[in-house]
């Protein structure tokens, strides 16, 4: 008797999936043509993209770069881009009216900026953080010029104040607040009475000066970056303080913070910039007149600090109450628990909002063109008012838009990277 029962001894190798499910065809079927609606959408999108590129690529690719005026471009070929305006005016778009022989200064400042943000962005390089600290002073000196010592004295004064504070705390006093007040007085005395003679002396002994450049000469992307970066750096700590003040249980402080935040968030930035350019002279002692760029920076900073405060408040509200209670029960003081427990978590939650505020601030720097400062958008109208380039639009706007896009998009990409990196829960 032969056994007719058949038992397979070897496993059949799995057959290849149908050709319609894998590879290019499978991908197409799954992602582009999964249903008739999707197929229609796909065809429409492809049609749309083709139409745009069909017009854009020949326009951009065949563009003229070396003509003297728009007229010449149009004579050569009216259907392609006239990028010559960028060739002719790129210096202005980057530096505004900055003196041409000093272009190395904003350039160097920008390179240093890139170097200075590396330690902040990537913890691997944190040992270079000292450079980020001296960068602001360096940038101010490079951009505006003047005596090297009058900038360094600020650093010297602040360092001395900090050392004074630390010595007081370590040796003589226990109370932080009294020590802080004394250190503040010490620093004030230093700046009021000691710094000027010292600077004068240093200027005589070892004069290091750069030619002075006034604020109205700043323009183009240099100006956008000055306003944007200063605003970003300054608005962050102010925003944190405002958010804490708004959460505080001290009614006076809370009221001041709420009033400030709601006022700033309630009015458009333009009106604040107008206050800076028109009204500020009313509010200051008669005869004071301080730098317009500084005024704008202050307004932009306050503006985004209010938004930042709301973002951080959202992060604080997102933390479970237990965190506050746990840190209090460990015996941490208010500032310790904020610094060690609350803020690290709250800031982590609010990263997307914080970066969005930064991006918004950087984009809002274009509004300074409305109070006739020469940022890229303002310069675009100046350039178009020039007889030679009258009637040019897209080449300029696309170039300016692209510059802003690169910065803003870079920031949002970094925020996504940071979120992934800080993600501790799965």
């Amino acid at each position, binding site marked *: 008797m032969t056994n007719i029962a058949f038992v397979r001894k070897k496993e059949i190798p799995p057959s290849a999936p149908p050709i319609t499910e894998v590879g290019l065809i499978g991908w197409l079927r799954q*992602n582009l043509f999964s249903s008739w609606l*999707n197929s229609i959408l796909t065809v429409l999108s492809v049609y749309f993209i083709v139409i745009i590129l069909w017009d854009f690529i020949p326009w951009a690719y065949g563009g003229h770069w070396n003509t003297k005026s728009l007229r010449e471009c149009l004579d050569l070929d009216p259907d392609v881009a006239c990028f010559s305006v960028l060739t002719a005016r790129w210096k202005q778009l980057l530096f505004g009216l900055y003196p041409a022989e000093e272009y190395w200064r904003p350039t160097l400042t920008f390179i240093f900026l890139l170097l200075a943000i590396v330690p902040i962005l990537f913890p691997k390089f944190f040992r270079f953080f000292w450079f980020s600290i001296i960068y602001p002073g360096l940038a101010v000196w490079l951009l505006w010029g003047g005596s090297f010592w009058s900038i360094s004295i600020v650093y010297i004064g602040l360092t001395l104040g900090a050392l004074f504070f630390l010595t007081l705390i370590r040796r003589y006093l226990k*109370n932080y607040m*009294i020590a802080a007040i004394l250190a503040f007085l010490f620093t004030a005395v230093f700046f009021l009475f000691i710094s000027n003679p010292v600077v004068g002396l240093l200027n005589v002994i070892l004069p290091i000066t750069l030619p002075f450049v006034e604020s109205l000469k700043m323009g183009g992307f240099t100006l956008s970056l000055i306003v944007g970066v200063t605003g970003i750096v300054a608005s962050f700590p102010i925003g944190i303080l405002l958010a804490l003040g708004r959460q505080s249980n001290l009614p006076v402080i809370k009221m001041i913070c709420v009033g400030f935040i709601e006022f700033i968030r309630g009015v458009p930035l*333009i009106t604040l910039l107008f206050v800076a350019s028109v009204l500020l002279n*009313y509010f200051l002692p008669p005869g004071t007149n301080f730098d317009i760029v500084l005024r704008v920076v202050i307004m932009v900073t306050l503006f985004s600090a209010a938004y930042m405060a709301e973002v951080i408040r959202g992060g604080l509200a997102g933390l479970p109450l237990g965190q506050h209670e746990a840190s209090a029960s460990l015996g941490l003081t208010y500032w310790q628990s904020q610094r060690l427990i609350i803020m690290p978590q709250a800031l982590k939650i609010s990263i997307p909002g914080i970066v969005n505020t930064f991006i918004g601030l950087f984009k809002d720097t274009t509004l300074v063109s409305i109070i006739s400062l020469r940022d890229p958008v303002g310069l675009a109208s100046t350039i178009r008012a020039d007889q030679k380039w009258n009637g040019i639009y*897209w080449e300029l*706007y696309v170039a300016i838009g692209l510059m802003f*896009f690169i910065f803003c998009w870079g920031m949002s990409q970094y925020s996504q990277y940071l979120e992934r990196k800080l993600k501790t829960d799965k």
Partner: protein
Amino acid sequence: MSSPTLPPSESFKFSMLLSDTRYRGMSLQVITFIIFMAVFFWLVDNTIKNLALLDKDVSFNFLWLRAGYDINQRLIPYTSDSTHGMAALVGILNTLLVAFVGCIIATVLGLFVGILRLSKNWIVAKLMSAYIEGFRNVPVLLWIVMVFALLTEFTPAPRAFKGAEPEATMLFFESIAITNRGTYFPAPVLVEGAYWLLLCFGLSIVASIYFIRYANKQKKDTGKSLPTFWISVAVIIFPTLILFFAMGQPVSLEYPYLKGFNFKDGIHLRNSFLALTLALAFYTSAFIAEIVRAGIMAVSKGQTEAAASLGLRPNKIMSLIILPQALRIIVPPLISNYLNLTKNSSLAIAVGYMDVRGTLGGITLNQTGRELESMLLLMGFYLAVSLLISSFINYFNRSFQIVVR
């Protein structure tokens, strides 16, 4: 046995004001308050001194003086003989008009883009994220001037419509003319009896609202759902349509036509208005799209799966399970984006649209030299709008918050 002991009572020392937690908060507040008031009075004092130096006083009488300038777009009667106050009001209405139209377009576009970005269709999703990133990462001011340039430079002049073989033609059966001076639409003209039509239309809307309530109640009670959407559309459209023909078409359209070198009649939307509204709407729609996407994604996947396991079809899952939960997350940031759009409309100056900043904070300010008063009123207006909207958000949050515990 140990008995609780009181700590030795310390006598009050002056330094305790700063070191003792019982008094520290209070003394901190007092110090802050004094500094705050000092700064405030310093500013007021400076202002008074400066005004005295300039021989100015603070008065709002200029609002009743003759304005003497024209405003090319207005929703209420206004001539150059009207007062500055009227000019401000025209500006306010213009601002609100841009904000209103802009918000509607932005919401529709934003919903559309946000949902399509979640599409499984690869190319559509990529296209939509390109749209979002493009609009979000370029300053809105640049978009406004770009759209304005597009509308003024790449559209034909009215005279191009002239002649037997014109270079440009009107769209949609000779009814809409897009020119570099603006876009002309046919205007509805109401003749006698049209008010009955409006009344009928209003009544149909009320009727459809009642029908929807009835249908919802029916669904709650019996579980049967009626085709609410189609029936209410029919209730709104058909009675009015029937009446329209029954009464011999009491509403006609007034078509724009070319006269001389310009179009006459019809509704004229200026390029400044169109550019501002469209640019703001596109820009804001990118943000709204992200909000919509985040809202939908925030509804946990378990909800979809649970609904599917109950046997609901995908479109029912969307409308009955996901959207109601997503809306709770979407609405507050959506409204704050409306607020942003309203505030951004103050960029109207870039295209010469006369909003409240252009009239009150622009020409009126320059003509009368009343910087302080004009800016105060201007800020007051924006503040009022924003406080109104944020109180609405708070109301919404209170009434729609999920109550936990």
